[in-house]
């Protein structure tokens, strides 16, 4: 009987001791240390692995902790789908204000928001922007064997492929069809960059746009592909022989609400890949993150890797500037929104109301 009591006592003491060790270790460790020490910073990404948004997130996850006090661990979580809708909605509903979850999105998320619709349950204007990486304007690639059909309305339609039918570069295709008479048909639903790259090689799609200089150069090296035009106001270094879309439009460039709508669609392109914290994040954490992001951009290793991934034309924008650009890109007049909706319906692209 006595030995049974002793054994019970031993068991209770053991469990209590185990609890004390864990609890005590943590408590001691927590006092007076930098905010991010021993913590994990999660970065939610609105795309599948391997594309530009994912690559940016992984670069950030590698270098940002170096400049945050406490040097946290990082974990990248992919949540593709709906052109960023899924991840944006999830981030808005679930992210806490403890600075431990950031969101890497791309211009598509802004485009979706501007387009509107009942699936949109987020507001990017409310996010606290930490900074952005822009890779230069999009370039529109076309298979050489499809080029002759582009201006021939009697020929088989040239197929433009996209993920969600929302991408900013798609505006070049739609406005090309509307104002230049390009013989185009739009197909969307491809999961991501790598599937579209394969589809372009296979001839399943004939036209595709991307900002990644690396991908474009690979295609150009392969032969069999051309670059039709680029989205920037000025020609990108490395693509100085490719006309801008405005140059291609020439005197057919639309005016008034049509052009306002074009700018509304493509505006987010300048922001490209941006990193944000939730709306309720305290100012001191936002400042800490913004400073770290900016310092990160001067890191030599970061610069080297960014150039390897994105080509020479990439650049960083600071958090406050990114915040202002997000506001500007998502402020669109009702008329321009209506114009875009009509235009998109004409070319069988998804609009805010998903009744097609």
């Amino acid at each position, binding site marked *: 009987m006595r030995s049974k009591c002793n054994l019970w006592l031993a068991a209770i003491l053991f469990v209590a001791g185990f609890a004390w060790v864990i609890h005590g270790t943590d408590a001691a460790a927590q006092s007076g240390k930098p905010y991010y020490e021993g913590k994990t910073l999660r970065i939610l990404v609105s795309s599948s692995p391997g594309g530009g948004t994912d690559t940016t997130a*992984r670069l950030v996850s590698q270098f940002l902790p170096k400049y945050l006090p406490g040097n946290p661990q990082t974990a990248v979580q992919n949540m593709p789908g709906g052109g960023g809708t899924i991840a944006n909605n999830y981030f808005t509903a679930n992210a806490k204000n403890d600075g431990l979850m950031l969101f890497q999105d791309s211009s598509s998320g802004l485009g979706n928001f501007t387009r509107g619709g009942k699936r949109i349950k987020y507001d990017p204007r409310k996010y606290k922007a930490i900074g952005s990486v822009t890779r230069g304007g999009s370039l529109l690639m076309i298979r050489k064997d499809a080029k002759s059909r582009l201006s021939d309305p009697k020929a088989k339609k040239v*197929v433009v492929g996209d993920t969600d039918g929302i991408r900013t570069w798609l505006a070049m295709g739609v406005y090309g069809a509307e104002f230049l008479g390009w013989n185009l048909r739009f197909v969307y639903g491809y999961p991501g960059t790598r599937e579209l790259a394969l589809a372009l090689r296979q001839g399943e799609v004939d036209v595709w746009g991307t900002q990644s200089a690396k991908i474009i150069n690979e295609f150009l090296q392969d032969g069999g592909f051309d670059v039709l035009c680029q989205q920037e106001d000025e020609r990108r270094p490395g693509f100085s022989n490719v006309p801008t879309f405005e140059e291609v439009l020439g005197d057919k460039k639309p005016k008034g609400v049509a052009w306002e709508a074009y700018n509304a669609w493509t505006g987010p392109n300048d922001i490209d890949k941006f990193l944000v914290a939730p709306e309720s994040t305290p100012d001191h954490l936002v400042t800490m993150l913004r400073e770290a992001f900016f310092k990160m951009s001067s890191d030599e290793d970061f610069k080297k890797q960014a150039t390897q991934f994105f080509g020479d034309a990439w650049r960083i924008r600071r958090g406050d500037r990114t915040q202002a650009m997000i506001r500007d890109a998502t402020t669109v007049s009702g008329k321009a929104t209506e114009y875009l909706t009509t235009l998109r319906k004409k070319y069988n692209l998804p609009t805010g109301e998903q009744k097609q």
Partner: protein
Amino acid sequence: MLQAALDGLLGVLALHSLGLMCVGVLIGSMVGFLPGIGGPTTLAIMLPFVMTMNDPMAVIALLVGIDAVGNTASAFPSILISVPGSSGSQATIIDGFAMAKRGEAARALSASFTASLIGGLIGPIILLASLPFLRPLVLAFGSPEFFVLTIWGLAMVGVLSGNAPVKGLLAGIIGVLIATVGLDVKSGIERFAFGEPYLWEGISLILVALGLFGVPECIDLARRKSSIAERQELGSGFTQGIKDVFLHWWLTVRSSAVGAWVGFLPGLGSSVADWFAYAQAIQTEKNAHLFGKGDVRGVIAPEAANNSKEAGSYIPTLAFGIPGGTSTALILTAFVAVGINPGPEMLTTGLSFTFAVIWTLVLANIVAVFICMAFAKPIAKACFVPFYTIVPLILVFVVVGGFSAHFSNTDLLVLVAFSALGFMMRRHGWPRAPLLLGVVLGAKMELYLWLSYTRFGFEWLSRPGVIILFLLVLVSVLYPLRRQKRAGAAA
């Protein structure tokens, strides 16, 4: 080419690269052993560390080492406790666990590792042989062809279901419907999520697998109040398992080839290679009625395939810089960071890196198999320990693994729901494997159907590749049915 092969080999055999490869193998093996932590999670954790390395050969050795061997060690939980350690070892559960219940766990494990070794050697050989025509190979499969392949996978459901084809097809359909839960990528519509943000991401495959297989078998163990092995003798053992692989050498080679060829299909192959291999084994082997009841061939086929598929998944990666799956997408990111440019260069100026990948796949498999073989016998004895030592550990394994899906308490609720479903299915004789396969294939099936229709209209039905594949589907479904009928008539 010979010089590139030698450079690649020397690069991998350099002391620090070899050391990193062994580290990668250990990490990959441990990850494969633990359900819930998959290869992509591990690679994502390693990525920041790897991207600071300067030696491309060392990066290849570490990352390819991790990626190549996860499926080898994942046979442990699949065979011993009916919990898939990775997506590549799901099919192994069917016969592997049945063998463990008969006291033949050691035989199943040694057969699995030997088959993995051979698969891991044949896969790179097929990759090597494919080098000259990698690009046309990848370009041959468009959305319509992928769609028919997913149909093929589901059509095999009827084959796998043995004598309950109606239940099997129903289970497969339910699996596909489960895969539709969440926000639809192409329309942004919330499907079966009922406004719940947790469900926007869809239902995690880990939770389905753990719930359908892990918990019901654990419940059965607890109810029986005995050990995993229903017979308390060792039965045929370790050496027999190794002999089995050589006795069925043609099955092993065939399954490895199936794995490598299916593995190269970008986005699709890595999750179904083991099922395709298992199904082709049932369709072509004699006495197919023994499959599902603890036939060692049901372990050899998927295990050979799930190692050879790793080499196959590098085909689109090397040819075009298009990753075969999530793991290779992450590896690709690291490659670019250290100056390896996946794509056309890998077959010209970067050929030595290509060979380094091939050599690492071979060597990592050999090392992993030896490690697993060393642990097989002692771990197999777990099948004879009393249930009260093993049941709580399995439940801990399963619950923590399930929680790792999204790190949410809701994961545990979903796990309970699927456990209840798996329990009821088992109780009433509904095959569970087709449901799991339906979840795996559902999203891809819908996607490729949509892309085929929206891009080609109904013209996609007349593509030569589609017609050939449809014929193959018909043959692979009708032939075993005809064989079954003949066998029934003869009996």
